């Protein structure tokens, strides 16, 4: 880990002043970065992937609250812990997809440490990004993409570019995408509200920029609009727990009698950002749920996939997962476990328990 100066911000103003006007290093890495839980930041600093000169500790800022909003929505403070969000009664009641997504990710210890803001900013798990001996345009622009001709098992099938085929690994972000959350940030030029679909970028020819957040901007909160429908998260991974998704799907369903008024569907680990399944959303609007409809919708989504040498499995796996998530969220299939828990969101056997409860 490279040496750095540690500062502790007492106010949001302090924090912003500490990072404002710090020149960027080459490769777009900031000299000064904010530090909350540190589960992603410190991991990458230990690998020398991240080399900030100044760490500004923001854990003492008043950003931890989870507050009900007057319009019926919920404001998640940027400093609120993942576990606090997942177990919050309002989240468990009204935004079940978010609880299921968070609890499907990481480990209990990490969920206790990781913050809402930090989860939004977590970096890709691409092994070439993580390995400073390998060429990587995201880590060092202009050096090339080792994954393109390498082992690209966990890489993108949507929205990639020749410069970068990395995926966003966050479970929570898929849920926030399906819920159309809004990210409130503050910078030297003032406050702005960023719709979730615009927060994360596609790689294009600037893969070093994961999000539209400027280096001198601080996330204040993630705001959830009011939601009265049903929602669900389904994740496929190679281990029963504590593993990143191969593919994941989040669905938020609002009904109009027997028909679907609006379906919002987002997918994880298939692109540089949570991928809204636009084709499926259009197909489902106004229709009655059925297995055939859902499979038709899923197929339409994945018709546009661009698989690589090692990730073609994601096409079929994604199609099946999307279909199944829709079946479960609409009640055509039972959940695998209690709603709002990792047991509901983990496809396959979790903790040795087979569907139906048999161990």
């Amino acid at each position, binding site marked *: *880990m490279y*040496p*750095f*100066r*540690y500062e*502790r911000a007492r106010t949001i103003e302090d924090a912003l002043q500490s990072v404002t006007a710090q020149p960027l290093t080459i490769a777009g890495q900031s000299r000064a970065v904010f*530090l909350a839980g*540190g*589960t992603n930041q*410190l*991991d990458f*600093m*230990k690998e020398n992937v991240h080399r900030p000169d100044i*760490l500004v*500790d923001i*854990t003492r800022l008043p950003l931890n609250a989870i507050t009900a909003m007057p319009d019926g929505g919920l404001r998640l403070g940027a400093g609120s812990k993942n*576990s606090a969000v997942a177990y919050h009664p309002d989240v468990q009641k009204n935004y079940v997809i978010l609880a299921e997504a968070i609890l499907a990710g*990481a*480990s*209990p*210890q*990490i969920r*206790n*440490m990781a913050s809402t803001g930090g989860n939004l900013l977590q970096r890709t798990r691409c092994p070439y990004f993580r390995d400073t001996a390998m060429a990587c345009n995201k880590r060092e622009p202009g050096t090339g993409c080792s994954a393109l001709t390498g082992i690209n098992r966990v890489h993108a099938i949507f929205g990639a570019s020749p410069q970068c085929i990395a995926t966003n690994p966050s479970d929570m972000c898929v849920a926030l995408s399906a819920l159309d959350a809004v990210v409130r940030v503050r910078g030297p030029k003032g406050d702005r509200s960023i719709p979730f679909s615009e927060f994360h970028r596609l790689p294009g020819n600037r893969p070093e920029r994961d999000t539209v957040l400027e280096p001198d901007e601080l996330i204040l909160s993630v705001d959830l609009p009011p939601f009265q429908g049903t929602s669900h998260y389904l994740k496929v991974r190679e281990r*029963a*727990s*504590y593993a990143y998704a191969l593919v994941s799907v989040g669905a938020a369903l609002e009904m109009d009698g027997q028909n679907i008024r609006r379906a919002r569907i987002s997918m994880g680990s298939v692109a540089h950002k949570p991928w809204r399944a636009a084709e499926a959303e259009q197909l489902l609007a106004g229709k009655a749920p059925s297995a055939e409809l859902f499979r038709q919708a899923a197929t339409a989504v994945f018709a546009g996939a661009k698989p690589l040498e090692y990730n073609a499995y994601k096409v079929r796996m994604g199609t099946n997962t999307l279909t199944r998530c829709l079946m479960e969220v609409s009640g055509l299939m039972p959940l695998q476990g209690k709603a709002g828990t*990792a*047991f509901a969101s983990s496809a396959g056997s*979790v*903790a*040795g*328990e087979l569907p139906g409860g048999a*161990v």
Partner: protein
Amino acid sequence: MSVTVDNRYIGEEAANTPPSEPLAVGAAAPDVPLHTAQHGTVGFAEMTGQTTVLVFSENDWNPARAEQMTALTNALMKAAIPEKGSAFQSVNAIEREGSHYALRIDDQEALQLQLFELDNQSSAAHAYGVHGRQALFVLDGAGVIRWSHAVEPGMLPEVTPILASLQAAFPSSSTATSDSPAIHPPLNSDPSLSTTSGSTTSRISAEKAGHWLGSRREFVVTAFAGALALALLGTDADAQRTALMDPKRLVPSTGAETIPVHLTINGKRHNLQLDPRTALLDVLREHVGLTGSKKGCDHGQCGACTVHINGQRVLSCLSLAAQQEGTQIVTIEGLAHGEKLHPMQAAFLEYDGYQCGYCTSGQIMSAVALLREGNANSDAEIREGMSGNLCRCAAYPHIVSAVKAARDSKQRV
């Protein structure tokens, strides 16, 4: 307890009550032979006559210790040209022969001292009031204690308290003023200082007694002794030895500034001076002697380093120590009440919840938190709830049994 004759006893027959506290500055060293690790037995009379440094340490068999000692003194001798502003500003050379060291200052006569390493379980340790503790004493030629430092039982020495003690003892010396070669008599200067040893009485002449040093030289010797002793006692020799040499300006070996960090660990407050990069796990293991938390992966993937911060289970390898000011940290060492095991520890023993034991402290810390979180109602919930703790020995089935037993016991977890 007075510091005169009453406090002394002879050789191996520690018949009288040994002091329960380390002997204080100004006390006369007890008339006991010293069974040193490397130089045989040194009698009291042989010891007196020059400045002596005694280091009491653990006597676990450590074949590397002699090597380390040799390497360290060689390094010290090579590095005898210090930075500006250091207490060793004018130390031109350090010579060593066996237990004797000569520090050459300003081309004047060298400061002579001898250093002995002693077992802290020995009767000598009893006599000095440091049985079972790591400690160092600096004695003048008359055998009077001029400076001492004893480490809390079970802890590793810390630079900050040692530096504070040095600065308190030698307030004018830390600003590297010019030397005053006055010879100061020992504190309780009785030219006919005598020892009672049953059948013999020995007298120490005034000449011998008078060999204490000018204040800056005293400081140099003591700081040197402290540095050497810290290295022997197993602290992070590099950064902390350098720090000890210059109390005013800590010169870290890594190029980063160190910062003060105050941590509360198992209810006890620690005042540390750390490289900002130091993870909580490394503070626990390397700085405060709490090696119960293990480093399995150092990247937050295995859970062996799990501790509680403000009652929540977290990974100490991914927790920056500097961020933990004001938090309550509890480690595996903080679970038991003295000799009474925590119910989870007892359950792990009863249900054989470990094989090699390396993941076990993390498993126990995680399990205790899991029960307090309240989501351990079924086997599946327990396994999912413990999924952040890996066990390469695959003791999982017994771990689940232990967690269930602790959950179902009448005891509060």
